[in-house]
């Protein structure tokens, strides 16, 4: 029995850019271009967790504010007009990323910052930044190792937080990050093998930095041809960016995945499953419930507060601070003073004092 249908009911995406500073513009552009494709193919903002470690669009060095371009000559603005970034700036840390994946977030975290997936969710995880053999650097101050990432995915599997998971990484030596995976139903793609660097695509002279990385540039070109009903499968995704275009060798890993990659549609991960039921019947709504007006209570007069009541302020009495018992230091100090005193002058003087 070969399962060719994935059986998922909802789609989630976690898109992370881990680099800070203006010269890492291309990493933010990478993440935003995947965000744009994923939104275009149907995944709503409430199911996307977007983490950008720095703000490039409204950065003071950006000659065209509120834009992030992916093609030189400013052809395509991947930032757009309708973007919701869930984790920005200093919030993009290894701890927050692992907490999102495993679901262990503090209770006051809002919904837009959580990954509320269940065991029928297909999740797309995209990471980009600077990396090395077995680690990925977060914001120039900490790293995540491939062992931690593999353990996080195993926790997700044990807690039934995903049905199938697609992991894409665009960093130097990216293939090392998926070497240690051991949970089922994981498929991984990387932009370069161990020992190779992922290269950037092209600079724009007006903006002054490189705009995109090669792998994600060709990935974006590939995704622009996909529409919500297309039947392209994963084998075409593996062919994106061969060595002639990318200079590095992209790699992929499918041994943990239960289905055959040829039967997995791109839209299983990049698009969204929508359950729409069409009906032709007329539905009659009942009358709205009338709120019973409670009897006119004797309401007090309200007034607007005086914004700067000078006389009140001047004559304000200082607030009485609560009395706290003296803490250990003061007690210890006084005990020491008394001990020294009585040692010096003898205990017989006690009766003269008290």
């Amino acid at each position, binding site marked *: 029995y070969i399962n060719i249908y994935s059986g998922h009911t909802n789609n989630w995406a976690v898109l992370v850019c881990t680099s800070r500073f203006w010269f890492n513009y291309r990493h933010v552009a990478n993440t935003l271009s995947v965000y744009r494709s994923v939104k275009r193919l149907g995944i709503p903002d409430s199911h996307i967790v977007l983490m950008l470690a720095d703000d490039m669009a409204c950065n003071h060095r950006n000659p065209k504010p509120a834009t992030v371009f992916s093609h030189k000559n400013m052809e395509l603005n991947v930032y757009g007009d309708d973007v*919701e970034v869930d984790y920005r700036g200093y919030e993009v840390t290894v701890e927050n990323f692992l907490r999102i994946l495993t679901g262990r977030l503090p209770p006051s975290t809002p919904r837009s910052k959580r990954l509320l997936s269940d065991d029928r969710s297909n999740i797309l995880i995209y990471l980009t930044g600077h990396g090395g053999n077995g680690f990925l650097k977060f914001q120039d101050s900490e790293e995540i190792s491939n062992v931690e990432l593999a353990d996080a995915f195993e926790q997700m599997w044990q807690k039934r937080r995903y049905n199938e998971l697609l992991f894409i990484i665009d960093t130097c030596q990216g293939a090392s990050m998926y070497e240690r995976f051991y949970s089922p139903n994981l498929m991984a793609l990387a932009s370069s093998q161990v020992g190779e660097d992922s290269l950037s695509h092209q600079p724009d002279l007006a903006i002054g930095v490189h705009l995109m990385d090669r792998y994600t540039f060709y990935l974006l070109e590939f995704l622009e041809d996909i529409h919500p009903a297309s039947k392209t499968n994963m084998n075409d995704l593996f062919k994106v960016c061969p060595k002639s275009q990318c200079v590095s060798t992209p790699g992929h890993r499918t041994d943990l995945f239960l289905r055959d990659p040829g039967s997995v549609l791109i839209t299983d991960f990049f698009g969204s499953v929508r359950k729409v039921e069409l009906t032709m019947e007329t539905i009659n709504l009942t009358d709205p419930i009338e709120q019973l007006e409670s009897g006119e209570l004797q309401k007090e007069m309200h007034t607007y507060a005086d914004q700067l009541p000078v006389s009140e302020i001047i004559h304000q009495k200082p607030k009485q601070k609560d009395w706290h018992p003296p803490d250990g230091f003061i007690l210890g100090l006084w005990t020491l003073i008394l001990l020294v005193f009585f040692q010096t002058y003898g205990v017989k003087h006690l009766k003269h004092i008290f």
Partner: protein
Amino acid sequence: PNIQQGRQRCIYGEVSPTEAGGGSDSPAPKPAASPPSVPRPKDDFQEELVIRPLHSGDIYTSFQFRTLWETDFTRENKVSHYRLFPKSLGQVISKFSVRELHISFTQGYWRTMQWGQPYLPSPPGAELWVWFQDSLTDVDGTWKELTNVLSGIFCASLNFIDSTNTVQPSASFKPLGIGNVTDHQIVCTENLTPWKKLLPCGSKAGLAVLLKSEKLFHSSFHSQAVHIRPVCKDDQCKTTSWELRQTLNVVFDLHNSGQGKNEWSLFKMFSRTLTEACPVASSSKIYIDITDNSQGEQFELSPATPLLSQAVVLGDRRTFSVYDLTQQITFGTMRSLNLLIRGKSSDMLRPLLHAERYVAGYGLQTGEIHTLMYNNHPYRSFPVLLLDSVPWYLRLYIHTLTVTSKGKDNKPSYIHYQPSKDRVRPHLLEMLVQLPPNSVTEVTLQFERALLKWTEYTPDPNHGFYVGSSVISSLVPSIVAMDTNNSRERPLFSSFFPSKEESSYFVRVYTEPLLVNLPTPDFSMPYNVICLTCTVVAVGYGSLYNLLTRSFQIEEPSPGLAKRIANIIRKMRGVPPL
């Protein structure tokens, strides 16, 4: 309304927009089957845009969207039917027992000397002030949850607000509440997108179609804010209704957006024109400030409009040309409105109150904060309340506080100082100072910089640490009598701060935020120390261990090659070896 053939009919399409909020009974019956009695709409939405050409050639536009709703969030049976008021904010108010909430996101600094006073002041970065109901007991816990929820709604990093940068002022900001003054924030489209989604018409109809992020952020000053508060419904003020104001202030630069020409139009500023008012708005107007242009000699407006209006705002009586978007005639034959303003505005009056702040000193150990407050009135003096909230890692020496005006010491009539506690709360300093006429008052305060623990540094510590703006609140004498009747219908921009007396009006000025460098350790040192120590241990201890525990044995040197071959031949012959 019935759902027919899978199409949904909008509920508000059946209420005609000319019926002002809170007053109409059931609307005109439609021919299709309609419910017998429709509850009268108790909410009202108004939108307006004020455009003021500035004397430096820049142009100041201020959008205000106001939703009024007669409801009671504090009643036991929770409100569940939301119409114009956004549900996300309504749930926040009822869940956290909020009485008043003001949150603003600003990019850029308001230059008072060049642009005059803003209609709604806001500090650079993000600012959040909340007043809770008296019935709330756990204020700290609720404050933490509220900041997290708001950071989710507005896509902002408000979750960094905690007790280390929150203050409870005793005298500024009536009524009493807790607040956070200007956390440094970058404001971008991701903050504007959820803000636009709170409007009843979204960004699809009415004035909000002009809000395109590419043009809005390419400006000298951009500020968006949400204000929620209860207001009086009528003169007697026996009942209150909830008011939600969403404001957006932008100043477009003459050279950046205007290409150096003194000609502004809606299309040039926003890359859009207006085609209709928001269908659910009871009023939708554009006001252009033409006070300095009474004879039409400074600048001209096109298309011309006969409507004029006068309003007392910021202590002065100003004249405005009004375009009413609810009238079809405003859009003319082209069905679209593209206002054109050609020419410059004349010199403006010097603002009566403005302030500056900077850090003096050298090195990474000590420094001095100087705050300057200017009173430009020729003969009147007025009191100002200065609120300073300094983070704990700048240790203030309050005994060095000096307040001088015109070279002489000026003793404040009220000082409230709450010292900071390391990693728990910031310094809070409030002072009521009387500013003499036509003078500069200087407040100086020395401080020392603290060394943080190495995990408390941000990933880019060499950028520096921000100190929030000072807030200066004051009652400034006004040129004309202010209107103290607060419930009369007035344009929105003149009715934000209620006036209690006629001779002065309330003004709030924010200073610049400060950027202070703290002594930064070398973060590569832990790595260096570990490498060095491990090398020393391996080489030094390892050698010593080997010397002590190794035993030596004497070994015969191996013979040369010729001798070895000879020995083999001799062994074969049976003869003893050499």
